[in-house]
């Protein structure tokens, strides 16, 4: 019975939008669904899919749109399906993303403003949470690729010598930020944007030398010794994410392809999506309906022939 219903729904839809498992991707998938229905009269099915499966679907003609493709994270998929096969098109516009270290207001007040400050044991002592006199810095969840790179950066910059690098789940780290802010305690931690934590708390990014590819030598993580073999003593390079759509869909619906090329969410809007879904616990379809109702002129502009 369930299978029949799903099959009917899939048949009834004019197009399929992949939906990733993070909040801004979920909101965007639903905003695109409602905007396309409003401006082009087509009915889209929003289907939960990871990025790899979404690309396979885009290639096979089973998926038409993927709302957030992160670069450089999925560069391999982009090379295969966009550059080599020509089966998928990346929208020319992208939302800039960022990652690095953040400080709570009390950490800034304690003199922790630049990456060089982190190498000063007298300054980082205020970050001590376990009474051993050394500060702690959360560098990410144990499963993230970025966590290993943060360890490389701490070694390369030198502050690994005077702070304890902590790896634990993101929820634990975010709750620690909440508790630190609630009691006016200093904290420095890995962070990335767009992210709802910037809506919850007043945070300052730790200043670093700009990204320099010549000083960023990351050995592939399939080498067990990659962390000790790597070095990275500059800021991360800028990341981006794009909307992607199937080339065949673009040919069949050039007007919608043009519309997708015009969608220009700002990082602030993406943060607001993340906040609404993750903190305010709005469902992505409800949030999308409110967004589409409140941004009619914007959507008209994207759809202008």
């Amino acid at each position: 019975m369930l299978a029949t219903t799903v099959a009917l729904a899939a048949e009834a839809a004019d197009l399929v939008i992949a939906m990733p498992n993070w909040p801004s991707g979920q909101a965007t998938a639903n905003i695109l669904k409602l905007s396309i229905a409003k401006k082009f009269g087509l009915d889209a099915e929003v289907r939960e899919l990871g990025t790899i499966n979404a690309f396979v679907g885009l290639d096979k003609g089973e998926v038409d749109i993927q709302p957030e493709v992160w670069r450089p994270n999925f560069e391999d998929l982009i090379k295969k399906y966009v550059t080599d096969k020509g089966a998928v098109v990346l929208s020319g516009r992208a939302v800039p993303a960022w990652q690095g270290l953040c400080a709570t207001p009390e950490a800034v007040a304690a003199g922790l403003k630049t990456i060089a400050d982190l190498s000063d044991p007298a300054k980082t002592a205020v970050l001590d949470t376990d009474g051993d006199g050394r500060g702690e810095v959360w560098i990410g969840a144990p499963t993230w690729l970025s966590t290993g790179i943060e360890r490389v950066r701490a070694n390369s910059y030198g502050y690994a010598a005077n702070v304890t690098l902590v790896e634990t789940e993101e929820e634990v780290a975010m709750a620690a930020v909440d508790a630190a802010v609630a009691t006016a305690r200093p904290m420095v931690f890995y962070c990335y944007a767009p992210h709802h934590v910037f809506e919850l708390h007043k945070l300052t990014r730790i200043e670093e030398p700009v990204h320099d590819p010549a000083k960023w030598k990351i050995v592939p993580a399939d080498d067990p010794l990659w962390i000790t073999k790597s070095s990275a003593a500059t800021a991360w390079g800028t990341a981006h994410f794009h909307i992607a759509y199937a080339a065949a869909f673009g040919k069949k619906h050039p007007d919608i392809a043009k519309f997708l090329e015009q969608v220009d969410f700002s990082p602030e809007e993406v943060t607001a999506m993340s906040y609404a879904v993750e903190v305010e616990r709005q469902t992505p379809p409800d949030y999308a309906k409110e967004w589409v109702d409140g941004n009619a002129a914007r959507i008209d502009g994207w759809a202008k022939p």
Partner: protein
Amino acid sequence: MRKIGLIALAAGLCLGPLAALAATQIYDARTKKWVDYDKRKARQYFARNKQVPEAFRRQVVPFRTAEPPGTIIIDGNQHFLYLVQPGGQAIRYGIGVGREGFGWAGIVRIGRTAEWPTWTPPPEMVARDPNAAKWAAGMPGGPDNPLGARALYLYEGENDTIYRIHGTVEPWTIGLDVSSGCIRMNNDDIIDLHSRVKIGAKVIVLMQGAALYKGV
């Protein structure tokens, strides 16, 4: 979280004698300053005021978080337990924690709860302490039972971590690091918390005891 089992074994059962007391500090919300707080001060304060310092009393505080209401957040370093409430607030309780903190950080849940729980002393305590030996088979719940009025049992998945949030018969120890790994609260507070939590509630233990993660 995979570390819990190991650390629990290393630490033994978490309710030991209140022997050694490490120095700690308390946060004064009015002056926004941290002041030294130790066993002597704690006893003096309690004798004089019949309650713990204001910072450790149950109170509603502003608390902005992405965690849903009903989540418990334990900050062993600052000796606070937060129960997240709607509207950017939390109920904050003072807690006593182990000398070495909890020894781990991570996410667990309330697996079960008990009113006036039975206390079973760990075997090594039975061996060295005749008073504890008396209760080797389990001390029934009551006003002298060291687990106090209520216990919340922390589970990881379906498994009891052997860590508990429980009451105490020694209320002046709230705010101190004593030689046990559990989270203790005044009986009034644990009764209040027990009345508000649901089985399955998420419990986030913050990173205090981060030294555990050295060299990971």
